[in-house]
């Protein structure tokens, strides 16, 4: 049953890809095929995922490729199920959204090719999550990268887009290189490329090889997920793609790295040493904090969201790192809780990040700009989009009672538990990581106050003249679905958590679902006696119940005096306009000053005076922060490579004498050193 739904879903994507390409001459048809096929694929994908998660034991099947070395073998287990579920939800929402979103491409761009890449991306993701063979995995992995590259550079006429796309595909290829080496190492040990064979072989490997394998996989998967310091492609590439694609890229494509880590570290490598888990944890902390700090300084809406992806990957890695440490320290129950935190956050982040990108897409779609400084007041023309974006913002900030809170809460609980189970100074790291998680959460909240308020609230900053309208219904339905998912996964978290039992059983041999749920199935507990408890459902209920009397109080007052609308306080100088509003740059200024050591902000103020030096005619203000990693790490590296290459070109300077000399010298050296045994 799982296999059949999976196969149908794959077939939908495959035929969708081909049909889209074939119909590229007829844009409307291509759009229709693209969205319908993707929706169908997502539907069957979701069915397969649910069945696969519930089933518990893996389903295996394989197809021949003509070369016995490479078999297309699949294994659908609970881990695959969760990632496929996230994929299916996102694919469904995005394809509904795209019904309208792609309409503006008609007649301007090649929708057929878009649809081909879109389906290729979905297909490769599905296969990535189910591949049971290193070869198939790598194939799907790179197809995913190539399809995303194609989609990122969809607006290839733009120089910035092309550069971003290249950066993306090059980094992707580097990570492919790391994975290739890693898998070759494992295959050499096991004599086969089947994932199933790795476990036994990896345990036997020498210490040095285990370290090498771990580092290669961590680098490879980490680059794909955008961990710091390998993140620079992410904020470049995600914003320039069409928004429905950005939603998929940030929502699920970077999660492929998380999938890989979970699969390899927990399954194939059979557990990694404690220091490795600690490394994952620390990288997670650094990515989370720096990610959100960079997000705060952005006023490009989509770049801001892209930086938040780095942050959330960091949070996921904290959970994963904790799981790895617990496992090696002999606490599989705790490891299971931490793993659930990580995977659940993966799912949650997929949903709300997709929602936010779709919201940003709607904004871009109707206003034509991603620059928050030009937006404002959109809540009036676009109320539904604003509401959906708000829910997404609350969810991503980890605020109760939505889903982001639940997974962060689980992460906190795992981190706190870590204090008790490790020895020495490393135990301190856990609560410190927890406090950094708190910092991250609070900064994320600050950032989303900015993102939402500057974009949707108060007065428009120069977009009044444009014809701004609410998005068409399919786009709203797409966002609405994800909004509902955020709420449902938040309030109904306890109902959902039992579904993780097959997953933890498979990877860690533990079923902790029942420990996590208490109090008539409404209360989430930390999985240990006397541990913390929380209930998002009751919190939501409490908020609603308590809001009633408050509303009554206000209503009673309103009965007596009419509520008036009046201008905001303007310090007595009438004419408060959009120019007086707080800007995104201004909003983040305190943090820019506080963390100036990180940002190295540079600002420039130029005043032009007309007559008196006290009354400037105009003031130009420029401010930018230093992109530390790009400037300090990547730019010099690139420069170095280009310089060395340019120097090396002297080899081929055109002189035939030099060319003959190379052969002559080689001959003499070989005769001298090689000819005599």
């Amino acid at each position, binding site marked *: 049953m799982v296999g059949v739904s999976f196969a149908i879903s794959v077939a939908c994507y495959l035929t969708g890809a081909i049909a889209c390409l074939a119909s590229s001459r007829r844009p409307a048809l291509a759009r229709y095929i693209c969205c319908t096929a993707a929706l169908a694929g997502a539907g069957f994908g979701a069915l397969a995922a649910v069945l696969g998660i519930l089933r518990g034991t893996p389903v295996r099947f394989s197809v021949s*490729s*003509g070369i016995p070395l490479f078999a297309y073998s699949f294994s659908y287990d609970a881990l695959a199920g969760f990632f496929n579920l996230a994929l299916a939800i996102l694919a469904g929402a995005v394809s509904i959204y795209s019904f309208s979103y792609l309409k503006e491409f008609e007649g301007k761009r090649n929708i057929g090719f878009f649809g081909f890449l879109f389906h290729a991306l979905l297909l490769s993701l599905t296969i990535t999550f189910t591949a049971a063979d290193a070869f198939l995995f790598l194939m799907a992995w790179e197809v995913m990268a190539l399809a995303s590259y194609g989609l990122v550079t969809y607006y290839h006429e733009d120089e910035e887009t092309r550069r971003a796309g*290249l950066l993306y595909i090059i980094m992707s290829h580097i990570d492919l290189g790391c994975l290739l080496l890693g898998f*070759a190492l494992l295959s050499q040990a096991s004599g086969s490329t089947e994932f199933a064979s790795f476990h036994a072989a990896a345990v036997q490997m020498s210490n040095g090889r285990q370290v090498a394998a771990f580092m290669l996989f961590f680098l490879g998967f980490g680059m794909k997920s955008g961990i710091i310091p390998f993140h620079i492609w992410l904020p470049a590439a995600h914003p320039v793609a069409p928004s429905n694609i950005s939603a998929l890229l940030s929502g699920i494509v970077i999660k492929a790295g998380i999938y890989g880590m979970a699969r390899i570290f927990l399954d194939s490598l059979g557990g990694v040493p404690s220091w490795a888990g600690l490394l994952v944890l620390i990288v997670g902390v650094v990515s989370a904090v720096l990610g959100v700090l960079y997000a705060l300084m952005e006023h490009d809406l989509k770049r801001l969201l892209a930086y938040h992806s780095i942050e959330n990957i960091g949070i996921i890695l904290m959970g994963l790192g904790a799981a790895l440490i617990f496992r090696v320290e002999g606490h599989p129950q705790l490891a299971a809780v931490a793993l659930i935190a990580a995977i659940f956050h993966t799912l949650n982040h997929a949903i709300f990040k997709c929602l936010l990108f779709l919201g940003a897409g709607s904004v871009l779609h109707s206003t034509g700009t991603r620059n928050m400084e030009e937006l404002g007041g959109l809540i009036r023309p676009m109320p539904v989009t604003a509401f959906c974006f708000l829910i997404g913002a609350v969810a991503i900030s980890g605020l109760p009672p939505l889903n982001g809170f639940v997974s962060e809460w689980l992460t906190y609980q795992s981190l706190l538990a870590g204090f008790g189970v490790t020895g020495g100074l490393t135990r301190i790291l856990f609560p410190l990581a927890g406090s950094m998680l708190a910092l991250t959460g609070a900064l994320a909240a600050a950032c989303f106050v900015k993102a939402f308020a500057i974009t949707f609230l108060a007065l428009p900053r120069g977009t009044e003249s444009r014809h701004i309208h609410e998005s068409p219904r399919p786009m709203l339905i797409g966002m609405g679905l994800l909004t509902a998912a955020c709420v449902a996964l938040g309030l109904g978290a306890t109902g959902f958590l039992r579904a993780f039992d097959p997953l933890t059983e498979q990877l860690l041999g533990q079923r902790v679902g029942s420990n996590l749920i208490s109090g008539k199935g409404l209360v989430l507990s930390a999985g240990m006696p006397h541990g913390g408890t929380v209930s998002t459902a009751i919190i939501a209920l409490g908020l609603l119940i308590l809001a009633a009397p408050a509303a009554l109080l206000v209503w009673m007052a309103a009965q007596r005096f009419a509520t008036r609308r009046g201008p905001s306080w303007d310090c007595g100088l009438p004419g408060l306009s959009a120019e007086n509003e707080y800007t995104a740059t201004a909003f983040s200024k305190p943090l820019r000053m506080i963390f100036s050591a990180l940002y190295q902000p540079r600002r420039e103020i130029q005043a032009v005076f007309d007559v008196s030096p006290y009354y400037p005619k105009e003031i130009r203000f420029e401010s930018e922060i230093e992109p530390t990693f790009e400037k300090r790490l990547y730019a010099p590296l690139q420069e170095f490579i280009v310089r060395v290459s340019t120097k090396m070109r002297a080899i*081929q300077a055109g002189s*035939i004498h030099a060319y003959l000399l190379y*052969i002559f010298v080689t001959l003499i050296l070989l005769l001298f050193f090689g000819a005599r045994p």
Partner: protein
Amino acid sequence: MLLLWLLIVPLLAGLLAFLFRKRSLMELANLTAFAIEFCLAAALAAQVLRNGPVSLWNGFFYADALSALVILLSAFVALACSIYAVGYFRDDEESGVFQEIQESSGRAAIDKLREYYALAPIFICSMILVALANNLGILWIAVEGTTLASVFLVMFYGRETSLEAAWKYAIIASVGLSLALFGTILTYYSAFRLLGTETLASLNWSVLAGNAANFDKPTMRLAFILILLGFGTKAGIAPMHTWKPDAYSEAPIPAAALLATGVLNCAVYALMRFYVLSSKCLGPQFASHLLVIFGLLSIGVAVPFILVQKNFRRLLAYSSIDHSGIMVLALGFGGPLGILGMLLHMTFHSITKPLLFFCAGNVQQHLNTDLFRKARGGLIHSMPLTGAAFLLATLAVTGSPPFSLFQSEFTILRSAFSAGYFVVAIIFIGFLVTIFSGFLVHISSLVLGADPDHSPPKSCRWKSASIVGLAAIVIVIGFWLPSPLYRLIQGAAGIVMGG
């Protein structure tokens, strides 16, 4: 008899070109000949698969799975090139390139065409002979024959740069082949000391391979070094690679594609034959180390030139250096996986590389330049098919999944780990990634971007057919390889393994 026909058909096509006075007749002869040739090659492959090695004239001609594979690939490339050549030279004729030649050298367009249609079949004939010759001396002669035939193809356009390229090619290749001949003589000597003149009269590989274990070892060492340098020059292994960028960028596209695949295969084929003798005589270790060093060096040398490159045809040449390096490296890693990976690589490379050349050719003919700077990007707007195929071929040639070269590179990588070359493997992957980056940066800047308002080219059915057909094959073999072909490759691997 099949073996003889394999040689006669292209030779005949070459001779016929001298007789014809009309372009269409020459084209027809060429196309028919290579269509037949391909069928013959397929028939040979089938026969070898079914009945084992085929030989003729008391073992003078000899075809085992390895030869059959190389012949099949050569015939395939030849067929693809002959289809493309029709469109290519018609375009040349229309755009007035031949006119210029006529003005400068006084040779009529039809003579120029005849030059190509006569030389290319002879060139291909000698490639087939390389694979068919059992006698190592004949093998050498055939390889030298490819050089002699192709020198004229390199200077086809008669420009100053073509002459320069042809001169460098001729001199370097001749020196290289002298080394190879020296190596062949020494191989003969090392066998001679054991077997004496009588049994050895024919210098047949099939005889030598059976007795190699008892050859004189110091002589064999020296011989293999010279052979490696010699045929390595022909294969374009660094530091003997320097003729490649020049020759590839000056020759007409079909000839360049033949050089980059057919000649490369022949040279590597010759290396493999000697590798078998050497590893039987000296053990695989000696050859392995040398091959790994040279292979890695070749890939490494290609890297900076691919990263900083102004001319897209030279870019392709460096890619060819890179791939010959990969093949040599794979041979050096050895073991069942290494050899299999190497032969897979050879097969996939031969199928993929012509596509890249054809795309480059289209672009060059359309824009009348081979410099990135002058092309100004945005080709996808004026030539969507070529542009898309160019990107596809770039990805395929740089070994990116889901294209087939990835399969061979993955196999080679596994063999590297099995052979214990860990550091080499890491450097190898590092080089490959860098090459991919360089390639993609250049080609994407050529294909993508804002529309520079080039006029759209006249559509040419022959060119489009060859590109679409090749692209389709490239995509399909990325996912699925016909099992007879795989069995042929496996058989060839068995031969190189010395089984």
